[in-house]
């Protein structure tokens, strides 16, 4: 199994390099100039050229690419053009933040999505089904940036003054100022409070899709003979639905998890932007706009790696949830 996983990961490396190369080409062809962020009034063209030289941008493209590839293969992601900070540090700093946000949102979205999907499937064609699917699809259809701003209006700005709620959630950031002076419990509370709005927004957007998927999967399963068998045994309905049916309905949903997680990393772009959440999505957007190609390339590679890992994980999980395709059974 380990060998299998390792082989798949290794096979993905050329693929990811290919992706990174495409991105390199796109960035190289783009008309902008990373050095232009240092442009100041009174600056002479010579100074600009010097800055460009200092950034290593004077070399021909293929040399730049070769340099990048060489250091990349040696595990050195280089330095950010914009800040001079090593790319690795830059990414390691923000990656956990995105993972945290994505993991919480995914977990919530799957719990809520599975619950809603099952409710809808059990009451197919009922008004409840229509209302639930209409609502969840509405949130799913909403542009996430718009929803995010609305959430801040409702739960933060107007929470205390207009609605008179006792808690107004922090509208942005991961922690309060002075977080490092807090006690351990207060720290956890502070982080949780800051997590609520971004995670909830992301969850609302995701839940509709998952619920829809679970609903369809459940409808498929609930027609199966073994559900009839379970009922004929005299099992209570909740056990029939939540154990016998759901366990089977979740098998295809696991694949969704593998597909979702990496996609989520990019799906958080808008959420991170609006909530000023220091994560991968924002790093990527900022770096793209600055044409900070070492960061963009490393980020691309990482994203691609996540997709591959996500799919691998989904495959492995598939084996866990579905005994029929466990390895060794043929």
């Amino acid at each position, binding site marked *: 199994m380990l060998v299998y996983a390792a082989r798949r990961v290794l096979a993905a490396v050329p693929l990811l390099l290919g992706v990174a190369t495409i991105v390199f080409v796109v960035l190289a062809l783009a008309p902008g100039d990373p050095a232009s962020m240092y442009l100041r009034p009174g600056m002479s063209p010579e100074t600009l050229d010097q800055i460009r030289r200092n950034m290593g941008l004077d070399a021909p493209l293929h040399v730049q690419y070769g340099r990048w590839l060489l250091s990349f293969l040696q595990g050195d992601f280089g330095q950010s053009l914009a800040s001079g900070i090593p790319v690795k540090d830059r990414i390691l700093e923000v990656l956990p933040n995105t993972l945290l946000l994505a993991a919480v949102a995914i977990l919530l979205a799957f719990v809520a999505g599975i619950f809603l999907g099952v409710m809808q499937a059990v009451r197919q064609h009922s008004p409840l089904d229509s209302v639930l699917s209409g609502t969840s699809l509405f949130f799913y259809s909403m542009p996430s940036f718009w929803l995010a701003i609305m959430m801040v209006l409702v739960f933060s700005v107007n929470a205390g003054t207009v609605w008179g709620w006792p808690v107004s959630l922090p509208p942005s950031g991961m922690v309060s100022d002075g977080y490092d002076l807090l006690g351990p419990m207060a720290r956890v509370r502070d982080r949780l409070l800051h997590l609520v709005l971004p995670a909830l927004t992301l969850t609302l957007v995701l839940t509709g899709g998952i619920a829809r998927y679970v609903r369809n999967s459940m409808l498929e399963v609930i027609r199966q003979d*073994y559900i009839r*068998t*379970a009922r004929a045994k*005299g099992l*209570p309905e909740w056990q029939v639905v939540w154990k016998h049916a759901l366990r*089977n309905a979740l098998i295809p949903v696991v694949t969704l998890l593998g597909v979702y997680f990496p996609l989520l990393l990019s799906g958080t772009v808008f959420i991170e932007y609006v909530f000023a959440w220091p994560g991968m999505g924002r790093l990527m957007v900022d770096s793209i706009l600055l044409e900070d190609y070492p960061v963009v390339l490393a980020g691309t590679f990482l994203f691609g790696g996540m997709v591959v890992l996500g799919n691998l994980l989904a495959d492995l999980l598939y084996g866990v949830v579905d005994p029929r395709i466990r390895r060794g059974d043929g």
Partner: protein
Amino acid sequence: MSLLEIRNLRSVFRTRGEEARAVDGVDLTMERGEAVGLVGESGSGKTVLALSILGLLSHGSGRILPGSSIRLRGEEMVGMKERRLRQIRGGAVAMVFQEPMTSLNPVFTVGDQVLEAVKAHRAMDGREGWAEVIRLLREVGIPEPEQRAGAYPHQLSGGMRQRAMIAMALAGSPALLIADEPTSALDVTVQAQILELLKRLQSRFHMALLLISHDVGVVSRVCQTMVVLYAGKVVEKGPTQDILRSPRHPYTRGLLGSRLFLKDRRRVLRPIPGEVPEANAWPEGCRFHPRCSEAWHLCGREEPRLVAMGLGRGAGAREGDSRVVGPPGGSLSEVGPTDRGGEGRSRARSVRCWLFSGDLGEET
């Protein structure tokens, strides 16, 4: 009091937005320990009938119409509370389904699934329950039950799976076991084993057995009584041997005629033309008449009713075993059937096709 008394059972299910009467006025009585075979082509309403007995119809997209009655040991099951129904399902009445592959949940081990059935009906702790599971698996003839209990359905052969299904059905010590085409999906050799097993279990636990099959041969091996169902209605019922020897209804004759006899090569295979109509589009009059080679003009207009054919051998006739009725529009006397009920017949045999009631009284 009979074990099971079904009176005027009418069940519908929704298909394409319309309600279809899959079972339309069936009467059926079963005694303790009795084996009854329910025969008919696919689409004739056999499975709906079985599901109606278990109260499972409402979980699909069907329901039992008011006015129907299903009494189990005198207790009315139509309109019964779900909680009580659950006690009966898998308890007093258990069911074995056609496809052992799809009827077992693929993601749980066989032992777990039997254990669930055990725990649903008997207060046992884990260890006792598991011992019971092993005992049941052994009972149905699964070798090395300790190991097999940990296997997933896809790791077992078809026969083994069906044995596991039967073990699951036995878990609640049912008084009535409904077996819906238990052998249709199995190899011929395995079929025989399963039928033998059912027969053995039935006599051993003195269970009533409702064996549903499209195969008259299967029923004739196990059941004393046979009920022929067509298009949601009982067209003929009576002792198996009687019906085999002299089928009355053309449909029954058709069923028998379309069997393959390997031994008797002279017999010509005579399949019934066409197929069972959709349940939401039953023909007017006799529902079989479009396919019936012996139909005449009345058949398309009038619906025949079940008529007792005074066949008696031995004693012990019971009330309500069959009903004596006449043609709806015609006069009873003209057509001829008369009520001989209460005169002491062993088993009433009924035929549905009133056109043939002229044969009334013929000794078999």
